[in-house]
């Protein structure tokens, strides 16, 4: 078996009393791109900095290329880890030209080799001919690509990107995202990036790790996370959703509008368990029915669709997507029926929740 490039084993980091990262374990294989998804304060950047060697672990260990680089007893400094870091604010050296920035990490090579390598990498990020400029003479997207080139130049075993696109405006973002993806694939690099943007994580990563309050909630492929989240938190982090209360009867969840097929979640669902069924906006369909108990409470026209909020008899609200020609108005009584092909996901209701 090929050893993972980056591996965290029960890694933890505290800043004084604050626990930034708790008990996180995962492994990144060669050539894989993994995204850390979480809101601010979820510990995702701290985790990246633990891998980069800018922080020391409080417990557990970090391994790179099968060697322990961080443990409470040992710390290999960043400069001896051979990892590349692309910072959120790029951190290009303002006193050096683009070429000098790219050559900065190539100290061991001869001058000629350095030139050649930096030329190659700049070509790869489509900045050939810009080597003599200074960082402040470049646009945001160009600075981003210089940062990437500088990181790629010494051929690191893995590349770490901290919120790589947060400093770019929206139109630039998707373009740069595609470009960076291409460059990463082209160079065959193993990469770990941090983001708070679900769309970005889904678009770039082979696997996404959802972090919350310093804990790793789940790590899986984007579609697996979306379709079968392990916890309500992951469900919310991976897309808008509602929770419909129900009770398990005969292996199905009985809710306001009939019983729904549910997938057995981890630990199983015993008969009679109170559950919350995860509902995404396209899981349900509705039809006007004056005798039905559910009522449309709001209608939001979004251009390509209409989003309706529906209140069920028990008082829960679920959202439902409709075609943009839909003329259903508020206060309409509607009947809801499931259209999801897969079984629904249900989470046991926590007492008191």
């Amino acid at each position, binding site marked *: 078996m090929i050893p993972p490039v980056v591996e965290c084993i029960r890694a933890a980091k505290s800043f004084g009393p604050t626990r930034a990262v708790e008990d996180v374990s995962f492994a990144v294989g060669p050539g894989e791109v993994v995204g850390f998804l979480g809101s601010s304060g979820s510990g995702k950047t701290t985790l990246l900095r633990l891998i980069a060697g800018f922080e020391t672990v409080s417990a557990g260990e970090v391994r790179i290329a099968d060697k322990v680089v961080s443990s409470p007893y040992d710390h290999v*400094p960043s400069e001896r880890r051979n990892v590349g870091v692309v910072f959120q604010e790029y*951190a290009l*050296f303002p006193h050096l030209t683009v070429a000098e920035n790219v050559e900065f990490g190539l*100290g*061991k090579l001869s001058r000629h080799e350095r030139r050649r390598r930096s030329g190659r990498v700049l070509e790869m990020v489509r900045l050939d001919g810009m080597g003599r400029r200074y960082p402040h003479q470049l646009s945001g997207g160009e600075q981003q690509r210089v940062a990437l080139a*500088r990181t790629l130049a*010494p051929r690191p075993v893995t590349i770490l990107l901290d919120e790589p696109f947060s400093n770019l405006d929206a139109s630039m973002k998707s373009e740069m995202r595609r470009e960076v993806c291409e460059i990463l694939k082209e160079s065959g690099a193993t990469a770990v990036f941090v983001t708070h943007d679900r769309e970005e994580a889904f678009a770039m990563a082979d696997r996404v790790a959802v972090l919350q309050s310093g804990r790793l909630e789940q790590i899986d492929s984007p579609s697996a996370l979306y379709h079968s989240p392990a916890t309500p938190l992951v469900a919310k982090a991976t897309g808008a959703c509602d929770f419909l209360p129900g009770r398990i009867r005969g292996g199905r969840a009985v809710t306001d509008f009939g019983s729904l097929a549910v997938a057995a979640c981890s630990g199983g669902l015993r008969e009679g368990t109170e559950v919350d069924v995860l509902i995404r906006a396209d899981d349900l369909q509705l039809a006007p029915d004056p005798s039905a108990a559910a009522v449309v409470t709001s209608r939001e026209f979004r251009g390509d669709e209409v989003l309706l909020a529906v209140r069920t008899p028990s008082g829960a609200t679920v959202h439902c997507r409709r075609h943009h020609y839909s003329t259903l108005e508020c206060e309409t009584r509607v009947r809801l029926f499931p259209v999801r092909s897969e079984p629904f996901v249900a989470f046991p209701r926590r007492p008191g929740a």
Partner: protein
Amino acid sequence: MTSEDLRIAAAPRWQPPALPAERQTWTRPPAAVWLPVLLITIAMALPPVYLLLRSADASAEAWRLLLRPRTAEIALRSLSLAAAVTLASVALAVPLAWLTVRTDLPYRRVWGVLTALPLVIPSYVGGFLIISALGPKGLLQGVLQGPLGVDRLPSIYGLPGAALTLVLLSYPYVLLTVRGVMGGLNPAYEETARSLGLGPWAVMRRVTLPQLRPAVVSGGLLVGLYTLSDFGAVSLLRYETFTWAIYQQYQTSFDRSTAALLSAALVLAAILILVSEAWTRGRMAYHESAGARRPLRPVGLGRWKWPAILFTGAVVTASLMLPAWVLGYWLVRGLHAGVAMGSIWTAAFNSVSISALAAAAAAVCSLPVAVLVVRYPGIFAKVAERMSYVGYALPGIVVALALVFFGANYARPIYQTAWLLLLAYVVMFLPAALGASRASLLRVGPRLEEAARSLGHGPLRTFLNVTAPLMLPGVLSGAALVFLLTMKELPATLILGPLDFKTLSTQVWSASSEAFFAQAAVPALLLILLSAVPLGYLMLRDRARF
């Protein structure tokens, strides 16, 4: 007061958004950082430790001398001079700052430079110019005597002369700090206030001035401390404040403990001022407005244009043109009478070389302290930073006394040499260098250093290849400031300088304290010109940065 005013007054003060805690990179500082910092901290601790020791074993006689009512008079004089100079400086500087930054005052850039220039005039030069112009048998009396037969002018000695001199020299401290903040004010706040229905005066009073308050306070603090520690002007104008009293005590008495006790009282007064500043600042909300801001649109002066020019012109005339003219007058007299130039060249050489050494030493010493304070925050860093600011609180004369004691008792080999003087300069002016180094290191984000580390450079190479080149301009301007301060320094130079060590400042002082104004003019002019070199460098740098 309307109910709306009440609501605004009752609302909690706006608090800045919490910044993400600065991530610590390498928790423990390496020996290359903490060892030099430790040595510097010990050097900085010499004066306060001396004060404590001497005060503790002061003779009964010394205590008796200290507890005379005369001491209270000295304290009262010192504090009232500091208060008067500070208030007058603020009153002059805030309108000047506004006029030269925010309005369409004609030639406002020229006025901007001219109003800052009095900074290069040392207080003893200012004192000598005032006495020679307005004193008995001075220029003004000479002019009035002929046609009008005036043979007595109201005395310039004492509080009025000292205050006038110090205000005209030190208002630029407030001006520069206020101007720095005023130029960076976000116009959005004023525009918001206008859109909420406030008129221009109300905007000034309720939005602009409150934002300037921190700058006014810290500029005022500089002036207050400068006045309290000033020796040149008060000694020439015979206004007996702490510094002059200490010097006289030191000169005339063998028992140095009275001077030490007076010094302790002076330091107490300085600490009082510092604490009051910290107290005002503690309740003030500082902010850093994010995002790109548009340049400020200058305010049209309209029919206030001529009064504004008149006001600015009057300040520049009083603080710059008249002194220049008086200096020129004595210069011509002196050159006609044939002043011995040889000793002046030696003095100039001494001044420049020791100031350059002090600038280099202070800049080098500030580096490890800045690295410790910025990159390794903690208790040690806090203590080291506080100790480095000892120079701000301790007047030069106190530092000098402490080092005389230290040199005579524990460092014989450097006692009575320029090295001890150099040490005094570093102790006194390290804060200036540290401020600049610290600010420039803060601008080098830790991300840059981390980038270098992740690209395979160790800590030392990272410092040499990334941090140092980026810090250099800031450190150089700190050094330029120290050079300027050292050139002007008088009391420590008088007390600690080797017997035959003449500098431009001691030359000016000894000539003018005996009213040989013509002899004082040449070294004074040289001193001002040589001090202007680093000041010019600082101004050009500021220009280049924006």
